């Protein structure tokens, strides 16, 4: 009955949106293939991949990503488990704390971090290693909203208290319960949280740039200032990386209800 | 001329036949139930009356005017949804007054009609509440009042009680009937609950797989079901395959026992099943009745009734006895005689 009338707009807006999404993507891809005048070539990609700075910064970010995601899991899984088990009253409060990185813009957060830890009594910016500690802490904080939410959703979907009590009644101790019952049931939630957090670390530019560490994001800024075609190639590479990461989450999360979406960050 | 007339309605969804040749005349003030299992086409038929679906073939007429293809908002037919479908952003009073508001009724009149509707459902004090603050039963009463406030020509109810607790369901059932009688409202009530249909209706339409199985008063539906489906869907029943000895006299053979029944319903058809309700069976042997002997297979307490299953040469016969204090209950494995009159069983 109403079908005929709605049809046009129901096609118009999605097609316009798809155009909006795909044109810059295609434009970038096209641009990235035109480094050699007059021909289509992968020269831009070859140049990027052969750049020692690219390799160094990428390795650095992957290592930092793994370290901070691991620490993040070690910190948040027991904390959220404990909240569900013993202090459910703390959940709303911790939830608010966990979204603070959304309220405090990254630039302000990094501002505070630098002003606090580059001065006595902390002095964490003097050596690269100490700065890396600060970097990891920063990454954990910045990815906290995603990590907390992923684990929280996973924890909510299983009956933590009953499972724990069942484990206890069968004679398991707390560590056994955590590692053999709770964590295996949270596998997917933890994994999707980890992938989101990892993607955040890879894409983050402000920390690396301002703390002057060779992070992937900082490398992008550097290349963007001096080159023309390489940035387009790097853009396609980051796009592909994000795509792989989100795709992996969707594959792992298939059949589970844990939601896995990042929120816009510019 | 009937008040509401449905004539040879067909409805197909792609290749599935949802409603197959449905015809029905409804008189003014009548309470009709559509009864059947889910997917039998009863809701689809109701939605065609409301105008949410259009028949593939056939016509619907209200007071002699054809309304088959009229849009729903031009029909003046009230509907109560299974999910209540109250607008969550409006108060109870605003919900009830909505139909009047969209037809540009003046504010004073709306107020009066809303007050009237609220008192009809005994919720005078709750007009300012939001649906989210009401219980399920209250929400459904508001939905009923909302449908009635537009003074519809027909009221449609689509399984209105199925989302509610058992106790509220009973209460609201009586309320619906009371209001319907008070307003003399022509009503179609869709349900899969035979008890609801039996207690509420003037007439019941039993449907199965898109077809009408039987249209009749509750007592005739229960006592004289015309098909095996109706017999087994409405109430509990024993149905056994039999071989015919004398079709004309209604004499059949059930595993070697000669059974005399009242004459089968469909003229000319060859009966293959015998049916008898559990409550028609009596313990003991009685001359002149149909007598069967078997072993007690199980005894179930159902509260007011005790259901006893008797194994009569491989046929499991259910018998219901009222649970009186002095009732002596046989033990499982006991030899047991039962009888039933030839009037109480029939052939299908």
């Amino acid at each position: 009955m109403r079908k005929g009338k709605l049809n046009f707009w129901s096609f118009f807006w999605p097609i316009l949106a798809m155009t909006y999404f795909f044109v810059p993507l295609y434009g970038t891809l096209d641009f990235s293939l035109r480094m050699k005048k007059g021909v289509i070539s992968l020269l831009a990609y070859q140049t990027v991949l052969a750049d020692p700075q690219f390799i160094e910064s990428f390795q650095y970010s992957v290592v930092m990503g793994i370290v901070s995601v691991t620490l993040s899991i070690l910190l948040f899984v027991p904390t959220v488990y404990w909240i569900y088990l013993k202090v459910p009253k703390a959940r709303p409060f911790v939830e608010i704390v966990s979204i603070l990185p959304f309220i405090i813009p990254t630039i302000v957060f990094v501002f505070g971090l630098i002003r606090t830890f580059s001065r006595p009594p902390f002095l964490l910016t003097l050596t690269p290693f100490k700065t890396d500690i600060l970097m990891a802490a920063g990454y954990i904080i910045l990815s906290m909203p995603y990590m907390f939410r992923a684990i929280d959703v996973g924890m909510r979907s299983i009956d933590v208290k009953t499972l724990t009590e069942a484990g206890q009644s069968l004679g398991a101790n707390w560590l056994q319960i955590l590692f053999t019952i709770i964590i295996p049931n949270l596998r997917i939630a933890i994994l999707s949280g980890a992938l989101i957090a990892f993607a955040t670390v890879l894409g983050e530019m402000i920390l690396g740039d301002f703390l002057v560490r060779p992070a992937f994001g900082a490398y992008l800024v550097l290349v963007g200032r001096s080159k023309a075609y390489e940035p387009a190639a790097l853009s396609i590479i980051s796009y592909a990386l994000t795509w792989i990461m989100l795709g992996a989450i969707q594959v792992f999360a298939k059949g589970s209800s844990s939601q896995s979406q990042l929120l816009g960050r510019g | 001329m009937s008040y509401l007339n449905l004539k040879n309605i067909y409805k197909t969804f792609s290749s599935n036949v949802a409603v197959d040749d449905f015809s029905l005349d409804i008189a003014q003030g009548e309470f009709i139930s559509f009864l059947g299992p889910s997917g039998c086409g009863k809701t689809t038929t109701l939605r065609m009356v409301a105008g949410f679906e259009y028949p593939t073939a056939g016509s619907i007429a209200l007071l002699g005017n054809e309304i088959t293809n009229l849009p729903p908002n031009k029909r003046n037919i009230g509907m109560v949804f299974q999910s209540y479908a109250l607008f969550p952003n409006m108060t109870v009073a605003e919900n009830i007054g909505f139909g009047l508001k969209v037809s540009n009724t003046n504010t004073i009149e709306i107020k009066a009609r809303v007050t009237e509707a609220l008192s009809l459902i005994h919720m005078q004090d709750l007009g300012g509440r939001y649906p989210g603050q009401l219980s399920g039963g209250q929400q459904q009463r508001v939905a009923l009042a909302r449908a009635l406030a537009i003074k519809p020509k027909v009221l449609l109810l689509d399984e209105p009680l199925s989302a509610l607790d058992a106790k509220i369901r009973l209460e609201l059932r009586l309320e619906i009937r009371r209001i319907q009688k008070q307003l003399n409202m022509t009503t179609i009530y869709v349900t899969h609950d035979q008890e609801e249909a039996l207690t509420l209706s003037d007439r019941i339409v039993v449907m199965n797989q898109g077809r009408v199985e039987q249209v009749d008063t509750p007592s005739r539906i229960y006592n004289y079901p015309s098909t095996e489906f109706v017999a087994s869907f409405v109430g509990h029943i024993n149905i056994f395959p039999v071989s015919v000895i004398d079709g004309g006299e209604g004499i059949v053979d059930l595993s070697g026992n000669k059974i005399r029944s009242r004459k089968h319903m469909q003229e000319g058809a060859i009966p293959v099943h015998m049916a008898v309700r559990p409550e028609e069976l009596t313990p003991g042997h009685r001359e002149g009745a149909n007598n069967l002997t078997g072993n007690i297979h199980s005894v179930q307490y159902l509260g007011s009734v005790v259901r006893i299953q008797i194994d009569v040469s491989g046929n499991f016969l259910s018998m219901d006895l009222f649970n009186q204090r002095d009732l002596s209950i046989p033990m499982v494995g006991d030899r047991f005689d039962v009888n039933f009159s030839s009037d109480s069983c029939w052939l299908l």
Partner: protein
Amino acid sequence: MQQSVKNKSAIRWWFWLIRNPWLGLLPFFLFIIAFLILPSLNLFVGAFKDQQGQFTFANVGIIQNPYIQKSFRVSFQVSITTSIIGTLFGFLVAYAITLGNAPRWMRNILMSFSGLAANFGGVPLAFAYIATLGRTGFVTYLLKQVCFTNSKGQVCPFDLYQNGFNLYSMVGLVLAYTYFLLPLMVLTIAPAIEGMKKDWREACENLGGSTAQYWLYVGIPILWPSILASFILLFSSAFGAFATAQALTGGSIYLVPIVIGQQIRGDVMNNPNEGYALALLMVIVMGVAIALYTWLQKRTAKWVAL
């Protein structure tokens, strides 16, 4: 012997934790205090100190500084414009792929692509726009080819840069921000639109309401809090964005985050405490936005919990 003593102390420690369950959250809170609360407090306390460390409200006076005022004005302009575009456009897209009649494959592509694009911010996004709409970009080049000859000679109506377009401007920022705000809107509003029950529409029609009346009295009032909440989410996302703007315009457009970035690098304001005050003002804007968002979410939750 040694073992049992160790065990005993472990058990005692354990019982102490059970009796004081809040202490189990100690590691989390220590971490948060050290790396989130302390740095933030440091800024906010600094905002109320003068250069000698005395308490003062003077720093908040930077709001009268024309340079700061301009940065807030530009930030608001960019964020509000792009959020409005994102909200309207995103709503229409989300409606078309949920309740509209858009085919299933369009919905699948748009939903999964939105998840991707909402996360495709920062520097790579800026690169993508430069490659597409920059002076030598792909689309710029294509549009430039559309020319025809009239009485005044050759005219190229779509030569963007001849016609005053500049990617490294506010317009460019709005275009780029929309790239991640539009999908963010689609992702946040689609569940709300899908939550609209078909029964509401039918009930409305049944009571005599037209399609327009349905939207006026039922559809929009129910969706309104969700739409507004999404708008605020988009706004705060745009307001806090730094990387895209920095990489696209090289800091030539004075957004609030850009000014803070310059302050971190080189104390452009000559007074670190004024820098802290600026950061505080920015957090206040974000805080108000998020508080509104939470409040609106609660409002819708009341309705959804039917």
